[in-house]
């Protein structure tokens, strides 16, 4: 069986300006969503607070729950139905995370018992994170993103360009740059943005077009996923960060496949036009790019649909990441090589 004929020839490279416009629009939409929402919707892992998942034995409404919990200062927006409607399951969030032996969840259970009758509601899950741990987890998540970025930038600059010396220079410059910026007392979030900028500039200066393309593609994937989370006001927590890191690792897979083919074709024919060669490479690998993403996408869709409420958002992040990652491998990462070639005139071709 074949979904994609071997002689397929779609002019992907010709669509690069449209693709760049679409990507730019999606990223812009994400940024607008983040600004509009006043930042990401940080879950209890990062902001501190209490999350409680409750199952009711009879049908109820968010308003009834809110009325029951009025005295605890829990608003309408903090009560959300999850799962199928027949499950009668709700997630209740509270900013309160008093760091003492008294639990917010006990207060909530007591008031629900009062309002709905004892035994009518069961707490399935409690997540309470105090401000100190919330701060620690935030730092840990940011450090994880930073180190993942560092190691992956190191690996792809070494591997794609086959120059491990350059990769060493890159790592040293990145570490030094972030260390120096760290001395100025910038917060971790800005340090990571700075690290990203340093990585891009280094790729440019050191003339590493493949690494540049790969890094831009993965920033692109993560930004769009995060933007969509902001747009849908989905909660951002530790498992979502794990999903993002997985996306970073996985979305590079397809990019690597295309890049490997471009290099293989470059070795075979040094004379041909770069645009034509890149387009041919994308088309040659199109079938496997779509198939590999497709098989992974299928299992993630099942996880999303059948996996239950706890894992739902995690699966959603992976879902979005895989789709966007596949798109960026075809439409962003490879055409960027041409953009780089046109701008720098240093020549991807000569160096490959």
């Amino acid at each position, binding site marked *: *069986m074949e979904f994609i004929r*071997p002689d397929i020839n779609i002019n992907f490279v010709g669509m690069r300006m449209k693709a760049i416009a679409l990507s730019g629009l999606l990223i812009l939409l994400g940024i607008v969503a983040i600004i509009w929402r006043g930042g990401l919707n940080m879950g209890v892992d990062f902001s501190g607070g209490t999350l409680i998942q409750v199952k009711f034995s009879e049908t109820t409404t968010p308003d009834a729950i809110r009325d029951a919990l009025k005295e605890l200062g829990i608003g309408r927006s903090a009560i959300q139905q999850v799962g199928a409607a027949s499950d009668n399951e709700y997630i209740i969030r509270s900013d309160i995370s008093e*760091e003492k*032996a008294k*639990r917010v969840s006990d207060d909530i*259970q007591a008031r629900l018992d009062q309002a709905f009758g004892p035994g009518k509601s*069961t*707490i*399935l*899950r*409690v*997540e*309470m*994170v*105090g401000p*100190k*741990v919330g701060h620690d987890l935030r730092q*840990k998540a940011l*450090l*994880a993103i930073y*180190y*993942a970025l560092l*190691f*992956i930038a190191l*690996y*792809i600059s070494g*591997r794609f360009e086959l120059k491990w010396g350059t990769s060493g220079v890159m790592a040293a410059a990145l570490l030094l740059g972030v260390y120096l910026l760290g001395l100025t007392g910038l917060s971790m979030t800005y340090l990571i943005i700075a690290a990203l900028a340093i990585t891009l500039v280094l790729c440019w200066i050191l003339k590493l077009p493949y690494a540049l393309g790969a890094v831009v593609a993965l920033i692109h994937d993560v930004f769009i996923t995060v933007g969509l989370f902001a747009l849908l006001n989905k909660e951002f927590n*530790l*498992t979502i*960060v*794990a999903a993002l*890191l*997985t996306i*970073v*690792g*996985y979305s*590079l*897979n397809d990019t*690597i*496949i295309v890049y*490997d083919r471009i290099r293989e074709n470059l070795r075979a024919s040094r004379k041909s036009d770069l645009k034509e060669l890149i387009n041919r490479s994308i088309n040659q690998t199109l*079938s*496997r790019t779509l*198939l*590999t993403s497709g*098989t*992974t*996408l*299928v*299992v*993630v869709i*099942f*996880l999303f649909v*059948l*996996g*239950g409420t*706890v*894992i739902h958002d*995690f699966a959603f992040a*992976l879902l979005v990441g895989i789709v966007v990652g596949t798109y960026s491998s075809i439409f962003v990462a490879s055409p960027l090589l041409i953009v780089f070639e046109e701008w720098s005139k240093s020549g991807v071709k000569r160096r490959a």
Partner: protein
Amino acid sequence: MKGLKWRAILVAVVLLAAVVYLLPSLGVSLPAWWHGTLPDEKIHLGLDLQGGMHLVLEVQAEEAVKTTLDRLIDELKETLRKEKIGFRVVERNPAGHLVIQLPDGSRRDRLREVLDKEFPILEWAEAMETPDGFRVVCRMKEKEAAHIRQLAVSQALETIRNRIDQFGVSEPDIRPQGENRILIQLPGIKDPKRALDLIGKTAVLEFRLVAEGVDPRTDAAALPAGVKIYPMRRFDPNTGRTIEAKIALKDRTLLTGEYITNANVRIDSQYNTPYVALEFDPQGARIFERITGENVKKQLAIVLDGVVYSAPVIQEKISGGRASITGSFTMEEARDLAIVLRAGALPAPVVILEERTVGPSLGADSIRKGFLSMVVGSVAVVLFMVLYYRFSGIVADVALILNVLLIMAGLAAFQATLTLPGIAGIILTIGMAVDANVLIFERIREEMRAGKTPKAALDAGYSRATLTILDANITTLIAALVMFQFGTGPVKGFAVTLSIGIVASLFTAIVVTRLIFDYLFIERRMRTLSI
């Protein structure tokens, strides 16, 4: 092809090891000789799957330093009286410093001498003339304070471990984390509120005299010296409810819970209500005998963590070292109180920094849904591979099933914990494991289209695709390893299964499938390739 035999042996050994590691987790009864010689560990389920409670507590170790200073005050006053150094006040200020107020500065050098000799853990911070005399401020030496803090954390850990052991939780995990934190994992706990009450209670038991003739409603400023108002829990037998009242107690603590050797729940035969019977050690018994003898017909209050439980009138001198705490307890409350009194007080209060509790029903639900998505996802991928690559697809499917087997065995072998994101990691790996075969098969198809024989196409496909596959997987592996380093609990579980899955999938998708194809082409003289 050369080395076919050796590769077959390698694959057989890996498979055998996987089965050996996996058997204990499958619930089959193993022969007696298995235990002790072969791996015996089951796959460990995370709290999010089996239900349970995850707690991070912080020991307020600074409070232990303050308590030590408070105890020092009585001793210091005694010494000053003996040395005939007149003082107005000796007290601890909120910053945790000891303030000694002298009538004038004439005895300051003598005071300093006495302090240096008798109280080496204190250091002289400052001394100054004040309008009403002379003020000396001392503080505890940092080295001593650090020692007390450290001791408080280790004692708190020990006490909490004792309480949990007596409460009865199977396989609790209690360990220190960082400088002053304690990580507690209680799998399968059914009543999280009760467990938390038990763990978090400081359980400082004190006996104090009731300040007679003082109205508990008196304003704090108007109270006589050495008297404070305490809340009191009183059981009203008429209404059957507990009421919060107030009571005035004298400041002096006559006896504390540290002399308790045993505490048990008894049932009052008259009212059929539970109470806690205490036994003191000989020293405690002597003190108890003395204070009851000296205060006959007075009210003695029993205070637990600053709340008065009962304040009976002493009828006569009590010898024998036995006392009881009556009050409005349920049977469970009395049992838990007995546990905390037996296990002893925490040296300093603890606060909860983090709590994650998953009820057993949600955990079971997560396992069911996780495995359902895993099975459905696997079936979909397996069917797709057969439909798309026909016979070669079946080979890839064999590798895929082996891959899941290896991941499970890996979890058992590394004693890793399977969490819900961990199951997601396995599901993701199932989708990614066939990627390698897709890359190889697509390459083989391409080579065959270019006119190569099936065998040549196979060789070219494997050799050309392998490097790309390695590359593509290494980036995911990097991300997984970083997650493992910085992740907590469930995320770590995801990182573990993802990492094991990637390594296992490289082995099954490249080595195992190649072995099968080579066997068919060389041993079975297969000429065509169904791909």
